[in-house]
Every structure is written in structure tokens, then in C-alpha cells.
């Protein structure tokens, strides 16, 4: 359909992915097997082509590249060659062991070949013209000897310091990258980042298909790692920074995967565990897969509400994972027993697990990864995070929000119903003190105290509940030895809701006169 092509001025260097490029066949991709990285690259690295991974010293590029080879060998039946210009084979083996990878075993099984290439200027005398054909033969032989489908060159720019003829090295590197394509190997080429440039010697000129930038920085006393896809020819990619982590499981990239789009909405309901509250949600409770935010100042009953939901989950025979950031498991069970909720039997039956951890014990990303793992390992249907606000201690507000978005997304994809409690500070508007996360939630409830007539009475209101008819009333509730009980609405003659002791007054048909509370109630 070229009949209606409009004449335009030629536009060189049109950015990819804006829809104006003629559609070619989908780019073949090689999955990295690295948690999260394949999601943000929509399937992996360009197959049969080199990808540039650059970053400063200690940013994790060597380990990321190594995991790409190890996963390739173990999970995708793609053996790999690691050509190191920096670390010796022994050092690589040692470093990979910290990620749980046994390179010696992989080498013995011919799934991996480590080759340390040493080019030291002080050990070479240059006397005439040369090229790098030896490197080609060496790499080619390594690839052929194990049938490698993946190659890592880490960090090939060191050739520039090993040899004095920069023109030869540049020309040979250009030839090397062309040659790699003819070998049809999926390659990672690492480059050292330098101020103002992606790589010291401009490797990005040769590797044009995919460029990934790694970055490590220290924010609020904790080191955070970030990954960004700078370029991915022929493939849509989010240009956002994505946090990642390196621990004893390897590299984990923590993406936001098309939030709110990929997951299936359900219409199945889950009881809140409180009959009166279920009634406020049309007698049914939350939707399965909902994320629920419960905000309130200290002592308003957030944890109790969470415990009710946890107990109701276990009663159905479903697993509930409870992340406690403030109290120990024994404190929670003791406190809940005082209002008649006995959680202990559910713990014994392994339907309830309480995972207590001080937020400051780990960095934000480490928390997120730990939560992901616990959820993946145990497969709960319901997750409680109490309180999510304690995460603030670990990161800035935007970071916490980004992390929460990732966590919510992760759970939604698994149809896990999640309840977060949020401690709001007294005095401020609840909307302001909720980390701005309420927009991420499907259901938002506010707990508070209604002060009137020299009394303080507990109240609950549903601020929002996506896709559900719900009560707009501010309801009073009491804590009994059988948990949270919503008090029946008692209306005065003028239609306003009577609370606290005025309920009794109301029931005695007392004149509304001076006992009339303000219509405009405020929830602190």
C-alpha cells in the first residue's frame, strides 16, 4: 500500500519504534535467562548479534555477561565462550561461585569455555605491521570446539592499552564485530564507561543493535544498581531505568511489566473477614487479585483489619503470606489473640507464614527481591504487607513508589490478592501522606477516629473500590474480644449518622438539638 505515501523531506536517523518504519519480520531474540531482563527486552538479546553492555567499574557487567552464558548453557542448550581480557580464568571461577555458578563443572562438560587473553604492552615489542588475526582464530576455534552459540568479550577495549596502533585495533574490532555476526553467535561485548562517553574507545559505533547501560550509585546510604536499555534496534523498549540486584542467585532485574494491562481481572470475591465490612462491599468483600490499601494513623486498627483478612484466607484453606515490618510473629499473634483472632493454628497448619524483618535490614531492591522469592517459593494466594510505610526508611518516596508498583504488578500477574497497611501521620490529609501509592491500589480504605462530644470513636470508610458498588458511609466500628465489629448505622431524624454515645441518645429519641454533631466529619 504505497499509493498514498506523502512526499516528505528526507529524515535521516529516524528513531526506531515510532511506527513509521516499515515492518520487518520480528527480530529473533535469545533469552538471557536472567530474571526480569527478558521481560524488559521483550524476550532477550538480538539473536546472532552483538550487544554492548557498558558501565563503570564494579557496575556488574562481567557478572551479568557471565550469567548470560551460564543460563544459556544450562537452560537453553547454548554453550558459550567467555573471552576475558581483564580477569584470569581462576578469578572468573571464583567470582562466579559467589553467584552460585560452578564454572569448572560447566567447562568440564564443555558447555563453557573460559579464555583469558593477556595483552600487556610491557611484554610485547612491536616491530612492523600486524593485525589481530590470532584473536579471530583463537575465538573461532573456541566457538567451534564446543559448538558455542553465545560469546562474551570482557572487556575487549583493553586491547587499546595493550597495543600502540590504535588505527589497527579500531579496524580490527570493526572487523571482529562483523565477523561475529557471520558466526551467528549471540554476543555480549562489555565496555568501560567514561565521563561523557558510553565507552572509552567508542565501541558503541560498532555494536549498533542493542546497548545496555549499567549504573551503580549510592543513594541514602544504600547502593542501588540500575539498568537501562539505551538502544534496541527493531524492538520496542522502555527507556526507563530499572533497578537490579546481584546476590547469591545471580542477577535480578526488577521491571514494571505493562502495569494493569497484562493481568486478567476476576470477578470472584474474597471475604474481608469482617461481616460488616463485607456488607459495605455489597456483602461480598474484595475481588480476587485486588490490591487493597488500608491507611490510618497509629492505633486505628490497621493490623487488626489485616489479621481478619489473613484469618479468612486461611479459613478457606488458602495460603497467606504476612510481611511484618514492625512486629515479630509472636507479637502479632499475641496482639491479635487479645481481640479474639487466633492466628497460631493457621501457622501450625502452614497456611499462614509471618515473615518479619526490619526494613532497614536490607536495601529497597533487596527487599523486593526477597519478597518476590518468598512469594514464588510458597505461592500464597493472599499477601499482607504491614505496614508498607516502613519501607520509607529504606528509600526515597519515588523509589518506594516504584518498588511498590513492581511488587503490585508481580502479584497481580499471579492473581494474588494483596493488602497493604499504611501508617499516616496525624494532622495531614491522608491523601497526602500515603506515598502517592493509593493510585496504584484497587481498594482504598481509611481508618480513623471520629472526635465528637468529647469522645473518640473508631471509624472506617471506603475511599475507593474499583469496579465495585460500595458504601459511601463513614462507619463506626468497635474492637471487641471477637475482633472488629461494625456498628449498625443509627440515623437521626435529619438523616445524619449518629456515633458513639449519641447513638444511645438517638435510640432514646432525644431531641437532636445541641447534641448534633457536625455533618462534616473529618477523618484524621
Amino acid at each position: 500500500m504505497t499509493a498514498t505515501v506523502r512526499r516528505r523531506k528526507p529524515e535521516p536517523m529516524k528513531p526506531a519504534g515510532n511506527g513509521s518504519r516499515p515492518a520487518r519480520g520480528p527480530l529473533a531474540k535469545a533469552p538471557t535467562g536472567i530474571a526480569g531482563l527478558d521481560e524488559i527486552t521483550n524476550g532477550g538479546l538480538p539473536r546472532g548479534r552483538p550487544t554492548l553492555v557498558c558501565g563503570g567499574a564494579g557496575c556488574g557487567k562481567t557478572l551479568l555477561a557471565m550469567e548470560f552464558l551460564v543460563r544459556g548453557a544450562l537452560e537453553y542448550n547454548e554453550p558459550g565462550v567467555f573471552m576475558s581480557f581483564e580477569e584470569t580464568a581462576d578469578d572468573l571461577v571464583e567470582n562466579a561461585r559467589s553467584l552460585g555458578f560452578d564454572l569448572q563443572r560447566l567447562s568440564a562438560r564443555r558447555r563453557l569455555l573460559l579464555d583469558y587473553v593477556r595483552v600487556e604492552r610491557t611484554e610485547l615489542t612491536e616491530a612492523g605491521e600486524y593485525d589481530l588475526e590470532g584473536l579471530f582464530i583463537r575465538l573461532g576455534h573456541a566457538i567451534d570446539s564446543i559448538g558455542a552459540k553465545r560469546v562474551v568479550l570482557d572487556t575487549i577495549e583493553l586491547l587499546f592499552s595493550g597495543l600502540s596502533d590504535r588505527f589497527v585495533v579500531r579496524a580490527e574490532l570493526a572487523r571482529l564485530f562483523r565477523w561475529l555476526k557471520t558466526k551467528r553467535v549471540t554476543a555480549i561485548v562489555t565496555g568501560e564507561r567514561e565521563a561523557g562517553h558510553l565507552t572509552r574507545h567508542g565501541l558503541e559505533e560498532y555494536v549498533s543493535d542493542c546497548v545496555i547501560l549499567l549504573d551503580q550509585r549510592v543513594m541514602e546510604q544504600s547502593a542501588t544498581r540500575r539498568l537501562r536499555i539505551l538502544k534496541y534496534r527493531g524492538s520496542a523498549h522502555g527507556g526507563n531505568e530499572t533497578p537490579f540486584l546481584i546476590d547469591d542467585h545471580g542477577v535480578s532485574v526488577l521491571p514494571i511489566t505493562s502495569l494493569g494491562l497484562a493481568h486478567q481481572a476476576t470477578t470472584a470475591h474474597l471475604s474481608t473477614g469482617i461481616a460488616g465490612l463485607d456488607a459495605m462491599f455489597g456483602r461480598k468483600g474484595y475481588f480476587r487479585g485486588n490490591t487493597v490499601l488500608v491507611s490510618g494513623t497509629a492505633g486505628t486498627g490497621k493490623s487488626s483489619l489485616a489479621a481478619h483478612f489473613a484469618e479468612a484466607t486461611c479459613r478457606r484453606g488458602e495460603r497467606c503470606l504476612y510481611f511484618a515490618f514492625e512486629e515479630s510473629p509472636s507479637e502479632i499473634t499475641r496482639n491479635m489473640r487479645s481481640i479474639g483472632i487466633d492466628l497460631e493454628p493457621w501457622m501450625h497448619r502452614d497456611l499462614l507464614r509471618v515473615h518479619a524483618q526490619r526494613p532497614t535490614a536490607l536495601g529497597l531492591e533487596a527487599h523486593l527481591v526477597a519478597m518476590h522469592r518468598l512469594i514464588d517459593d510458597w505461592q500464597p494466594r493472599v499477601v499482607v504487607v504491614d505496614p508498607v510505610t516502613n519501607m520509607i526508611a529504606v528509600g526515597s518516596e519515588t523509589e518506594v513508589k516504584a518498588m511498590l508498583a513492581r511488587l503490585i504488578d508481580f502479584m497481580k500477574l499471579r492473581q494474588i490478592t494483596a493488602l497493604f497497611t499504611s501508617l499516616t501521620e496525624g494532622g495531614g490529609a491522608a491523601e497526602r501522606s500515603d506515598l502517592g501509592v493509593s493510585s496504584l491500589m484497587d481498594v482504598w480504605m481509611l481508618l480513623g477516629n471520629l472526635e465528637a462530644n468529647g469522645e473518640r470513636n473508631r471509624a472506617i470508610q471506603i475511599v475507593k473500590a474499583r469496579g465495585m458498588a460500595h458504601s459511601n458511609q463513614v462507619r463506626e466500628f468497635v474492637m471487641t474480644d471477637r475482633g472488629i465489629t461494625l456498628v449498625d448505622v443509627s440515623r437521626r431524624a435529619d438523616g445524619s449518622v449518629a456515633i458513639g454515645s449519641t447513638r444511645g441518645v438517638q435510640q432514646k429519641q432525644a431531641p437532636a438539638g445541641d447534641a448534633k454533631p457536625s455533618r462534616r466529619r473529618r477523618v484524621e
Partner: protein
Amino acid sequence: MKDGPRRTWWLRLYVAGQTPKSITALANLKRLCEGHFPGRYRIEVVDLVKQPHLARRDEIVVIPTLVRKLPPPIRKIVGDLSNEERVLVGLGVLPRERGE
């Protein structure tokens, strides 16, 4: 290093096929050896195209590479050996210049 009359030179030249650089390097090497160590040298040519596994074993990256196997220690000289003075420096026949 002094080149004593009884010293034997064992030199190995790594090439990759019959390329101009390889041919030049071998010719340059023969001429140099005849001029400096007549009757006391042995040249071994390793063609990595035929024996690719030796590139890794002998740590070869640059072509051509000349390796001084004897006398010890091992030294490496890269290039087509057209700069004879540099070759002699690399072999240890001539002293290294300052700053090298």
C-alpha cells in the same frame, strides 16, 4: 644481553596462512638471523590456520608474533619484523631505550 658465540637462538614465528604480512615477516626474520646469528639459529613457523588450537595454548592474539623460545626468558615481538632495530631490541640483542 650479550650475544655470545655459543648462544643458540630458537625462534618461533606464528602466522595465519600465506598472507603478505606473514611472508614479509618470515623473509625479514631469515635475513636478520643470517646477519646476526649465522649457523646458530632455528626458526620454526607455526601456521595457526592449520593448528588453531595453538593460539590459545601459546597465548597468541596478534599476527605475526615472533616468540623467542631460547635463550630464556620467553619474549614476544609482534609485527612483520620490518623494523630490524626493534626486533633486535625485542630479542634482547640491543638494549631497550629509556622509557620503554
